[in-house]
């Protein structure tokens, strides 16, 4: 390192300078020694020249000794400097601790405010991070996409999944993908083994072998499927999910190669997946090969979920652009499934969406971002409050600081002093905040909608801890550096300090501005909470079209080997319905393939014997399903006309019930009763409509009612009805008993009919209804909590500033009272001051709210984002709080004794 002794740098950096000082000092020490020796030798009679030579000789290698001495000294200096820094830190921390414990009120309020503010923000951040920000737990998660088919011609937002023919076609012709896989989930019954294990329902994923490759899943034991397993000729094996293997088979490795009874078929266990391996967001117990044959004729049956892994560097948009011309050529490539008129009528295309976006969905991401912004606002309000507390302290310490400054303490040193204090406080707050976040997250997860994606991935991990630490240290830095911005270290403080401390106009303005900002932020939050509350109220007022009170629902799935015909399936349900109907407390029993609000949103085309003229009506996709005769009574759905009974059902009279909305669309202005309808192709024979059911909001209370066709359990001769309805949901209407308390009795009756059929998904219908509102109620609750916190913090903020002003203007108030002002005038002025600050904040807040509330968008239901009731109540609430917060300070002002006030300063 070349160092010119005179460069300015050298003066700035102390180390080289220190080095030269070390050298000077060593040289001086050696010079003293040599000169002393020379004098001594001269005194002994040597000539000056001889004396000097002798002294040098005796000293030895001067350069070497100097080098040694210098290097030791430098080390000493470095050590000392380190010790100094450490001492300073220890001293400042100790001083900060002492000063904080001297003001327990200030410390406790600041600590609590910050801990709750930071903790709440960290809790929501954890939610946001786990659900929206973190990549999915797969290798190459960023390259995973889903393939769907938007069909705007069917319904504006409708999206279909993939068909097998389409899948093979894309896999052969597209160059965007590394791998492409299909899956569909279906519940199966794993039979008891006769040695104490009962039959139970298990969720099975039927998958293409390629799906394991797409997601990067590996077996822990045995092997996974190969493409050959997907061919229907091969019976194939089954792969167990790790946790299912642990639970059902006690982690027994010998299960691989053994056969188990699934729905009456003996299936060999091929392997066990590694721990944690699964589908995105759907809990799967068993994996079985999806039977699909490339040689088979393609069907227009878009039922399979598709996941692809893009080639490196290929974006979802590029893949979608590549698939567009391929999709357009489907009618030529697969003429058996696609026609030009189908493509045109449905608006059929192929969309490629990043898997995470498809999973989380825009509304959920939006809701979480809104909640995060809300708690961030609460944190801002909290920070404003604490900043105000710090400002008050700074004012109180002004003289002390000025004295220290006058005595030569540098600005930096003074900053270090206050920084140590605020950093210590904020670090403590950060530690408490982790606890607060932990508790809040636990509470939130209990309340969270159960269909919130990636719920299982939510936990407080490093990102949350780092986030909390960053917030705490950031807050610490802001508060610690406040005195620097706040010119309070001028020596002027010494001069005016002796006078009666009337705060400068500037400082008062800063404080009022903080409160005004708080109030406007609080207004925005309260308005948002109010809008959500109104949405929730509106949602609760919605008539779902059925009566959930007293209804319990459960599902069964009949094994296909013994129940493979319409007749046997129908007989089973008829017997079960009769058995359950005889239970005490049960008033009606019905079964359905499509239960309202259970998340099912499938649909298919229906055909009538009087085809509608408009093609868009013909293309419309309608949910349809089979129901047993008691269904409408059990669900409390009103029916006009006739409901087929079991006798008519068994006689295959072909009576069908349709929803009012469907009847009105197909046959506007005339009765639908007696019209023909069927689900597959327009050729007769048709089922005939015998009843019109009330509309049901089956897709959610915030969605319009669905058009629905309720088919009987048995097909009429010559008309197709898909496959026998092995999976049905049972609805049991009760009176005078707790609905779910009947479960054991129901289970016992079921076992009497067939002990190998497990009962699953037992749920009170009212629970399903409230669950369908969970997203609204969850958002409302969290926004409500944020709003309440904002309100409380603003009240504290207003109270703090007003009482500070009263305290500061003690003398002024005294003078005014001495000059004849009445008590009520003084109080009124204080209250007016508070209301003025709040009113300004409310005004700003209302403008901000009007501008911002649009982002709530689809979270709102039947409420305008600028709903005057919500805005008005938020404003009124804040003004009332301002009034209340100024009450105590105003009374204190009224009690000022003029004589004492004038004397005290």
């Amino acid at each position, binding site marked *: 390192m070349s160092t010119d002794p005179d460069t300015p740098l050298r003066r700035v950096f102390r180390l080289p300078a220190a080095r030269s000082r070390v050298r000077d*000092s*060593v040289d*001086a*020490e*050696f010079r*003293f*020694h040599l*000169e*002393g*020796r020379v004098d001594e030798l001269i005194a002994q009679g040597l000539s000056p020249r001889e004396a000097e030579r002798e002294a040098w000789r*005796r*000293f*030895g*290698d*001067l350069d*070497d*000794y100097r080098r*040694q*001495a210098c290097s*030791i*000294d430098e*080390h*000493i200096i470095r*050590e000392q400097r380190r010790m100094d820094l450490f001492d300073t830190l220890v001293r400042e921390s100790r001083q900060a601790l002492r000063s904080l414990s001297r003001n327990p009120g200030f410390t406790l309020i600041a600590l609590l405010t910050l801990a709750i503010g930071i903790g709440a923000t960290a809790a929501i951040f954890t939610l946001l991070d786990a659900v929206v920000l973190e990549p999915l737990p797969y290798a190459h998660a960023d390259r995973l996409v889903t393939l769907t088919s938007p069909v705007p011609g069917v319904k504006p937002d409708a999206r279909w999944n993939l068909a097998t023919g389409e899948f093979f076609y894309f896999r052969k012709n597209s160059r965007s993908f590394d791998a492409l896989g299909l899956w569909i989930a279906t519940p199966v019954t794993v039979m008891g083994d006769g040695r104490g294990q009962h039959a139970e329902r298990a969720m099975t994923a039927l998958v293409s072998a390629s799906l394991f490759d797409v997601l990067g899943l590996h077996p822990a034991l045995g092997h996974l499927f190969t493409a050959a397993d997907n061919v229907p000729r091969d019976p194939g094996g089954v792969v167990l999910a790790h946790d299912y293997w642990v639970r059902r088979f006690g982690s027994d490795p010998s299960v691989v190669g053994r056969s188990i009874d699934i729905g009456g078929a003996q299936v060999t266990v091929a392997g066990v997946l590694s721990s944690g391996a699964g589908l995105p967001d759907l809990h799967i117990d068993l994996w079985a090969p999806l039977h699909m044959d490339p040689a088979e004729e393609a069907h227009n049956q878009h039922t399979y979920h598709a996941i692809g892994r893009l080639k490196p560097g290929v974006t979802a948009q590029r893949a979608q652009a590549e698939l567009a011309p391929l999709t357009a050529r489907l009618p030529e490539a697969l003429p058996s499934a696609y026609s030009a008129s189908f493509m045109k009528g449905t608006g059929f295309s192929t969309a490629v969406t990043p898997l995470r976006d498809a999973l989380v969905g825009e509304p959920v991401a939006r809701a979480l971002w809104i909640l995060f912004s809300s708690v961030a606002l609460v944190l801002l309000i909290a920070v404003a409050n604490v900043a105000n507390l710090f400002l008050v302290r700074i004012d109180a310490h002004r003289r002390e600081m000025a004295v220290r400054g006058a005595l030569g303490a540098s600005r930096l040193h003074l900053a270090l002093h206050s920084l140590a204090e605020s950093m210590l406080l904020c670090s403590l707050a950060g530690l408490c905040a982790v606890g607060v976040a932990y508790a809040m997250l636990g509470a939130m997860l209990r309340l969270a909608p159960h269909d919130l994606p990636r719920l299982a991935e939510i936990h407080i991990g490093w990102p949350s801890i780092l986030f909390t630490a960053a917030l705490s240290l950031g807050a610490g830095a802001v508060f610690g550096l406040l005195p620097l911005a706040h010119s309070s270290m001028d020596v002027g403080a010494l001069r005016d300090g002796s006078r009666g401390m009337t705060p400068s106009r500037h400082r008062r303005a800063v404080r009022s501005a903080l409160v005004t900002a708080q109030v406007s932020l609080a207004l925005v939050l309260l308005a948002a909470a109010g809008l959500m509350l109104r949405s929730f109220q509106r949602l609760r007022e919605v008539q779902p079209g059925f009566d959930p009170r007293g209804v319990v629902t459960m599902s069964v799935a009949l094994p296909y080997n013994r129940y493979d015909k319409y007749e046997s399936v129908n007989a089973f349900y008829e017997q079960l319905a009769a058995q359950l109907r005889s239970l005490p407390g049960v008033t009606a029993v019905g079964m359905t393939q499509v239960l309202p609000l259970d998340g099912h949103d499938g649909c298919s085309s229906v055909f009538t014997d009087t085809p509608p003229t408009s093609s868009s009506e013909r293309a419309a996709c309608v949910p349809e399903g089979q129901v047993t005769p008691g269904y409408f009574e059990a669900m409390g759905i009103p029916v006009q006309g006739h409901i087929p009974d079991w006798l008519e059902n068994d006689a295959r009279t072909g009576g069908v019930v349709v929803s009012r909305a469907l009847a009105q669309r197909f046959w506007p202005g005339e009765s639908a009763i007696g019209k023909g309808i069927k689900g597959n192709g327009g050729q007769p024979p048709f089922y005939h409509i015998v009843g019109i059911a009330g509309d049901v909001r089956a897709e959610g209370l915030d969605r319009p009612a669905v058009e629905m066709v309720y088919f009987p359990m048995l097909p009429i001769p010559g008309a197709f009805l898909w496959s026998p309805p092995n999976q049905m949901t049972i609805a049991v209407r009760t009176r005078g008993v707790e609905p779910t308390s009947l479960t054991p009795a129901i289970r016992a009756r079921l076992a009497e009919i067939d002990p190998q059929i497990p009962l699953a998904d037992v749920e009170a219908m009212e629970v399903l209804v409230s669950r369908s509102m969970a997203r609204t109620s969850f958002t409302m609750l969290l926004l409500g909590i944020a709003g309440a916190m904002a309100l409380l913090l603003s009240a504290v903020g207003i109270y703090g500033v007003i009482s500070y002003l009263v305290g500061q203007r003690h003398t002024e108030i005294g003078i005014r009272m001495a000059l004849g002002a009445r008590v009520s005038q003084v109080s009124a002025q204080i209250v007016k001051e508070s209301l003025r600050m709040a009113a300004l904040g409310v005004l700003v807040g209302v403008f901000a709210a009007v501008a911002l509330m649009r982002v709530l968008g689809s979270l709102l239901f039947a409420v305008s984002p600028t709903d005057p009731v919500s805005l008005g109540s938020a404003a009124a609430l804040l003004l009332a709080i301002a009034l209340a917060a100024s009450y105590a300070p105003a009374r204190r002002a009224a009690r000022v004794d003029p004589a004492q006030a004038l004397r005290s300063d």
Partner: protein
Amino acid sequence: MPTSEDLDLLRGTLDLLVLRTLSWGPAHGLAVLRWIERVTENRLQIEEGALYPALHRLEEKGWLAADWGFTEQNRKAKFYRLTARGRRQLTAELSKWSRYTHAVGLLLAADGSR
């Protein structure tokens, strides 16, 4: 010039001599050296410069403290003094030495009979 074996022996001895010298009061390097010359009757042949690394090393260990001051002739010099830790060190070293010399003495006085 001492051989390297002598030096190794000397280093420990020199530290002890320095501590011992300074136990009577602060002194600058030259004074320390003069005292060592006197008590060893000039038999401890070391280069005078070697004293200084020794002094600085003892300062680094915290056994000595150094300050600039003035001699009786009013010349500026660096004075060393024993710290509390240095005094404890000296006591420990001295007792170690006396135990050692006692043991060596016993050994040399032994007459070979059992």
